């Protein structure tokens, strides 16, 4: 083989390996769910109201983990449900949040988190009824929670009836569900505020807290507060 051919072969081989490594890094290590932006055009720190709509499903048939429970976020511009758990909101704004709860119950590991904290008024509306806490043990009435620890926000998600035939295709558009609405203020300081579900709903993983519980895009995510 001539010298130029050897050089070209070596160069091609090197580029192939480099491209493979870059693909791995980008595709697996840097991959992140998309961010749904709310409140575009809203001036931060004015207390303006921003509406955020989410749903939690018993499965996720749009991903490679169809048996993982998952949240979805509704894009305010298109009305389409996005398979992501990352959303951005303006700083110092009032968030009116609606979450549709399509999943069934799993008792909380710590029933304390059946207690609503951090909302305006200290309550959440379950199908329009103001509620301050839901007992997840006695009646198995909690499916998931929406919790942002750094602002002490915690909302237990009420569930459909135990005998209900749950929605089987994500994102759910029909089927038995509960509707939770609540309001809270975003911090005045811009930053990333993680949120999580506190119900150990990662079945098949240690303590029920692996898989979807520790993967962005399923049962945990980020609230990006922008100013």
């Amino acid at each position, binding site marked *: 083989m001539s010298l130029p051919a050897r050089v070209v072969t070596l160069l091609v081989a090197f580029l192939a390996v480099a491209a493979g490594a870059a693909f791995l890094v980008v595709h697996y290590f840097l991959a992140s769910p998309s961010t749904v932006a709310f409140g575009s055009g809203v001036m931060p720190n004015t207390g303006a109201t921003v509406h955020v709509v989410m749903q939690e499903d018993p499965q996720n048939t749009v991903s490679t983990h169809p048996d993982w429970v998952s949240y979805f976020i509704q894009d305010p511009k298109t009305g389409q449900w996005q398979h992501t758990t990352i959303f951005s909101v303006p700083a110092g704004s009032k968030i009116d949040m609606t979450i549709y709860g399509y999943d069934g119950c799993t008792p909380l590991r710590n029933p304390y988190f059946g207690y609503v904290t951090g909302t305006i008024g200290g309550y959440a509306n379950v199908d329009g009824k103001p509620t301050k806490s839901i007992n997840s043990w006695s009646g198995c009435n909690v499916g998931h929670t929406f919790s942002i620890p750094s602002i*002490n926000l915690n909302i237990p998600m009420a569930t459909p009836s*135990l005998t209900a035939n749950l929605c089987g295709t994500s994102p759910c558009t029909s089927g038995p569900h509960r509707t939770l609405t609540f309001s809270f203020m975003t911090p005045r300081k811009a930053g990333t505020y993680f949120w999580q579900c506190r119900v150990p709903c990662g079945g098949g993983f240690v303590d029920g807290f692996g898989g979807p519980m520790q993967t962005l895009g399923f049962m945990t995510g980020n609230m990006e507060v922008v100013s």
Partner: protein
Amino acid sequence: MAASPTEATRPAEPTGPNHGLRIFLIWLPVAVVAELLIWLVLGPHLPPGNLTDQAHSQQFDILMLFVLAAPVMIFVLTFFGYSLVAFRQREGDDEDGPPIHGHTGIQATWITGTAVIVLFLAAFGTYELAWPGMAGAGAGEGPSAIWTPKGGTPLQIQVIGQQWRFTYRYPQYGGFETTALYLPVDQPVQFNVTSLDVIHSFWAYQLGVKADANPGVNNIAFVTAKNTGKFVVRCNELCGLWHGAMTNGGTVVSQAAFQAWATKTEAQLASVTAQLPPYSLVYDPTVIPEINKAMAKAGIAGANGYYYPPNDPAQP
């Protein structure tokens, strides 16, 4: 009388300045100044601060290590610097260095000095593990505390770790649970630290308290706050995706303010407390009797009181 052959062949001891004395005279004032600066200037600012007796004791321990280590370090650096200047090879000097024989006095002094320092630190460290007040220095002592504070009943605060938040129960106030951590000043506090899932570690930095939170285990640590102020709690055991965000703040307040807060919170959270399991030093959240009823009602069997059937959760 003629000299013996051995004495005749031994090379003469090198003559010249007394390097040992020179090094000592350089080292001594530098070490004295460094000790004064460490003790008087650096000492009050060393971590973890002065908020509690335990933190103050740890600060003193670190100061003691500085005070002991500084002269040794300065001696090493002085010797190093002096050697660079005094023992460097001059231009045109191709001779070997002088033969050096062991010096019994120096060796004995070195061995004795380092042995004294190490043995002192062993005794000092052992003593400080119990101090202050023979209450365990803020460390987790396990379920049966070896050292307990004297005088009065400590305020009991249960620390519950769970992915990814610490919560706190106050059994002497009806067992209410909250995410806020308040302590009274000048009163011994007994932390009962446990976990509901994986291993966490309760690290209240400015309090000088660090105790592992193990599921099914009660780990006791004591602290007595000597000043009012705020402190930070962090998890110090890698516990999953949001371990780095498992943090919250706490406050040391006056005894009157604490009493008012605890009484008010107990009343406010009465309905929530009623939903909690009875106060216990440990909890087994994998077995929830009520879930059987709920699951049976839904026609689901197989979990036998656990979240998932016995073969689940399994290792992924």
